């Protein structure tokens, strides 16, 4: 598998410094699980952050009392123990899961076992709650060969393909590929033939559909 559409420098450096809120970070981290190239780039950004951190001026506060407090905790045996790693959601053993971590733990199971909610025209969604209060995050399943209604964006939209593929004005997107869209892009993604397209979609503003009817029922669909 070769990923061809990657995370932009802006997003990746914001993810590295911790500025990026949870919803966007989920899409970036899931792309990173599928893309060794971007993991190398992330390492660069973390190295830059580390150097800038090293260059921060030292706090002039008296650290003596801090050390006194801290060194007492070192003797506490419970502080010497590494907490057990968080157990992720285990996928069925036979084949690699469609949804990589961290996404699989967010939705609670792999793609097949999910409770998909109909969106109309054969499309389904699974909303994913996050704590950031800014983004809206969902898994989408578009039937093979079918279009997503043409729309533009009120803000930023990240779409990460997990199964099947879609094509639009910017090219063809397969498993691992991520598309970053903004106010300037108007597109009509069409799912590739042969396999339903499952993707993770993150937005921070409602989509602007071209069709009047869709704009009317949009609040009901919550998209």
């Amino acid at each position: 598998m070769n990923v061809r559409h990657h995370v932009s420098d802006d997003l990746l450096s914001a993810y590295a410094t911790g500025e990026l809120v949870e919803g966007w970070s989920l899409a970036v981290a899931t792309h990173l699980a599928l893309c060794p190239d971007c993991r190398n780039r992330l390492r660069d950004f973390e190295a830059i952050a580390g150097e800038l951190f090293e260059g921060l001026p030292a706090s002039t506060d008296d650290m003596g009392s801090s050390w006194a407090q801290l060194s007492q905790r070192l003797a506490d045996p419970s502080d010497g123990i590494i907490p057990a790693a968080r157990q992720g959601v285990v996928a069925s053993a036979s084949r690699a899961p469609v949804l990589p971590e961290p996404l699989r733990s967010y939705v609670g199971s792999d793609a097949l076992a999910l409770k998909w909610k109909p969106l109309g025209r054969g499309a389904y969604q699974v909303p994913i709650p996050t704590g950031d209060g800014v983004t809206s995050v969902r898994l989408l399943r578009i039937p093979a060969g079918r279009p997503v209604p043409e729309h533009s964006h009120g803000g930023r939209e990240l779409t990460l393909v997990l199964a099947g593929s879609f094509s639009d004005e910017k090219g063809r997107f397969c498993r691992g590929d991520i598309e970053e869209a903004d106010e300037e892009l108007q597109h009509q993604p069409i799912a590739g033939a042969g396999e339903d397209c499952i993707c993770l979609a993150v937005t921070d503003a409602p989509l602007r559909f071209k069709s009047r009817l869709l704009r009317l029922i949009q609040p009901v669909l919550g998209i």
Partner: protein
Amino acid sequence: MARLLDAVASRRDIAAFEKLFRHFGPKVKTYMLKQTKNLHMAEELMQETMITVWRKADLYDAARGTVSAWIFTIARNLFISACRKQKRPEFDPNDPAFVPAVTEPADVGLASRQDAETLRAALRDLPPEQRELVQRSFFSDVPHSTLAEEFGLPLGTVKSRIRMAIAKLRKNMEDRR
């Protein structure tokens, strides 16, 4: 620094840990103060960061980067979970769906030490204004719009200068490989 951390990991060496604390503690506190603007929280999060360094010293992998970079990621994650009440989604290299790199570079340890040196030199070589912009934008000290006002530059210019400076730093690292 890596040797001190190794002494903490292998021997629970308190003297080595104190040296790490004296070096990094005050920087972590500055970072936390910038993020939280709250002295009490900054102190608490600094202590939490340093105790995590003590507990997880054996998880530090010199091949993945410098001690500064590692401690920074610990501080960053603690800040996100404590103050933003948000999770920090991260990939899991042990997940069956994780796609590993096809080739591992021969000596990543050496490469990352060289990276750090190159990076330090490249940071020194940045024009002072660019260096300050990058530094302050990285730790969400102030929003870009405030930086623009302070430097008397249009917002777009501030953003593109930061982007240029970061691209320059990354290019330096790539050229070494």
